[in-house]
C-alpha cells in the first residue's frame, strides 16, 4: 500500500500548493513549447533539404578522343565507389539534343555553330549518405585522376553551404535543447526544493514515526513527474493548436504552408519528455537535500 499512499500524498500536495505547482507547470509548458517549435522548424528544414543530394549529380567530361571500348571499364570503376549511387553515359550527340530542346525558344544561340561543341560525359548520381562536401570533393579528385577524363564538375559551393547550414542547425538545435531541458530540470528542482521546505515539519514527523527515505521521497518524485507531464501535455495541446488552427488556416492564403510537415508522432512524446525531466529535477533536488 505505500505506493498508493505516495500517490495520495502527492495529489494532496499538488492541490495544497496549487499555485507553485501551476507556475512550475506553466514554465515547463513554455520551455517544451519553445523546444517543440524549434524542432518543428528544424524538422521541416531537414525534410526540405533531405532529398536535395539525391537530385544532385556530378558531371564527368570525357576527353574528345576517349576510346569507347574503355567506357564500360571507367563506368564500373566509378560505380564501384561507395559514395556513388548510379553512373549514366551521355553521348555528345544526346547532350547536344538536350541542349537544343532546352533552348527551343532561343535557337539563335546555337546559330553559327558548325559542329557539336559538347563532349561525351558521365552523369554520376551520389548516395544520400555520402553527401558531405569533403567526401564529394575527394571523389571528384579521384575520378579526375582517371585517364581519359578531362574535367569533373560538381556544385562544390552549393554542397559546402548545404553541409554548413545543416551542421550549424544541428549544433544550434543541440545547444537550445540542452539549455531548455536544463532550465526545465532546474524549475522542477527548485519546485521540489520549495515544496520540501514547506513540508519540513511533516517530513520530520514522518521520520520520527519510522518512515524510510523512499517513503519520504516517493511523493516528491511523483509530484515532479506530474508537473512535468502536465507541462508536456499543455505543450502538446499548444503545438497541435498552433498547427491546426494557425498553420492550416494560413495555408489557405499562402500555399507554401501546405508543404510544412507536422511530426505528430514525435510531439506525442512531449508528456513523456516532461515527465522524465520532472522526475530528473525532483531526483536531483532530493539527492541534494539533507534530511
Amino acid at each position: 500500500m505505500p505506493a498508493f499512499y505516495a500517490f495520495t500524498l502527492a495529489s494532496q500536495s499538488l492541490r495544497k500548493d496549487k499555485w507553485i505547482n501551476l507556475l512550475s507547470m506553466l514554465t515547463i509548458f513554455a520551455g517544451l513549447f519553445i523546444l517543440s517549435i524549434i524542432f518543428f522548424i528544424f524538422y521541416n528544414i531537414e525534410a526540405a533539404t533531405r532529398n536535395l543530394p539525391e537530385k544532385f549529380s556530378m558531371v564527368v567530361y570525357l576527353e574528345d578522343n576517349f576510346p569507347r571500348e574503355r567506357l564500360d571499364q571507367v563506368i564500373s570503376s566509378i560505380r564501384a565507389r561507395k559514395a556513388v549511387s548510379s553512373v549514366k553515359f551521355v553521348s555528345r550527340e544526346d547532350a547536344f539534343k538536350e541542349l537544343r530542346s532546352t533552348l527551343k525558344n532561343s535557337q539563335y544561340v546555337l546559330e553559327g555553330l558548325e559542329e557539336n561543341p559538347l563532349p561525351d560525359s558521365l552523369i554520376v548520381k551520389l548516395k544520400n549518405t555520402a553527401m558531405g562536401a569533403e567526401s564529394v570533393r575527394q571523389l571528384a579528385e579521384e575520378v579526375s585522376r582517371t585517364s581519359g577524363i578531362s574535367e569533373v564538375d560538381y556544385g562544390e559551393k552549393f554542397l559546402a553551404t548545404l553541409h554548413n547550414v545543416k551542421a550549424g542547425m544541428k549544433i544550434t538545435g543541440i545547444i537550445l535543447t540542452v539549455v531548455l531541458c536544463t532550465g526545465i530540470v532546474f524549475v522542477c528542482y527548485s519546485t521540489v526544493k520549495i515544496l520540501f521546505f514547506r513540508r519540513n515539519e511533516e517530513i520530520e514527523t514522518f521520520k520520527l514515526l519510522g518512515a524510510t527515505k523512499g517513503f519520504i521521497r516517493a511523493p516528491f518524485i511523483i509530484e515532479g513527474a506530474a508537473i512535468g507531464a502536465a507541462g508536456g501535455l499543455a505543450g502538446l495541446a499548444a503545438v497541435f493548436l498552433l498547427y491546426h488552427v494557425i498553420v492550416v488556416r494560413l495555408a489557405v492564403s499562402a500555399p507554401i504552408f501546405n508543404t510544412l510537415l507536422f511530426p505528430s508522432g514525435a510531439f506525442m512524446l512531449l508528456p513523456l519528455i516532461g515527465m522524465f525531466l520532472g522526475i530528473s529535477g525532483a531526483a536531483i533536488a532530493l539527492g541534494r537535500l539533507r534530511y
Partner: protein
Amino acid sequence: MINFHGVAKEYENQTAVRDITFSIEKGEMVFLTGPSGSGKTTLLRLIYLAERPDSGSIAIAGQDVSELKESGIPLVRRHIGVVFQDFRLLDNRNVFENIALALRIRGAAEREIKSRVFDALKTVNLRHKADSWPRKLSGGEQQRIVIARAMVSDPTVLLADEPTGNLDPDTAESVVRTFKDIHAKGTTIVIATHNRDLYRNSGKRVLRLEAGMLISQEVC
C-alpha cells in the same frame, strides 16, 4: 530491552547527559524524572535515535544501535511508539489520518488500518473524534490522540515525554490509566516526567536525573 552503557551527549559544548548506564527489562514500566534541563528528553531522543551518543553504547532489543547506519534507523523506530512533548500532530490531517500515518508508514493494508485506528481511538476514549481536526481538540484530547498514534502499531517500546505536562489532574489521571492498560499488554514503557504524582506509590522504577547524570534508581 533497553541498555545504556556510559552514554554521553553534548550540544555545542554543553553536556546534555553524561556517563549514563542503566537497563530496562522487557515489559517494564519506568519513569524518568528530574528538573527541567536534567536530560530527560535527550535520553528519550537517544532511545528513538533522534540523537546519536557522543560516547558509550545503546542497545535496543539486544541490537547495538549506537553506530547504526542511517538506513537502519526507520526499522528500529517502527518498534518504538513515541508520545512527543510537542505532540507533533499534523494539522492538515484529521485525527483518523494522524493515527493511521504510523500504520501507513509501516505499509499496513487499508482494512487493517481502519480497524486498528478505531481500536486505538477506543482505548483512549476518543472514537467519536475520528473525523475531527487536531486544532479543534483540547490539550488533553490531543495528548490522547498522540498516545493512540504511538500505540496503534503495537510497538515493543512506548516512550512518553511529559505526557501530562499541560493537563488538568483528572485528564492526567486518565492518561496514566491508558499507559497502565497498554503496559498490562506487555509493552515496555518509559515515561519522562517531572510530575511526582504520576509515579508516587506506583510500584514502578524511577530513574532520577540531575544535570545530565543519573543520580538514583529506586522503586516508588
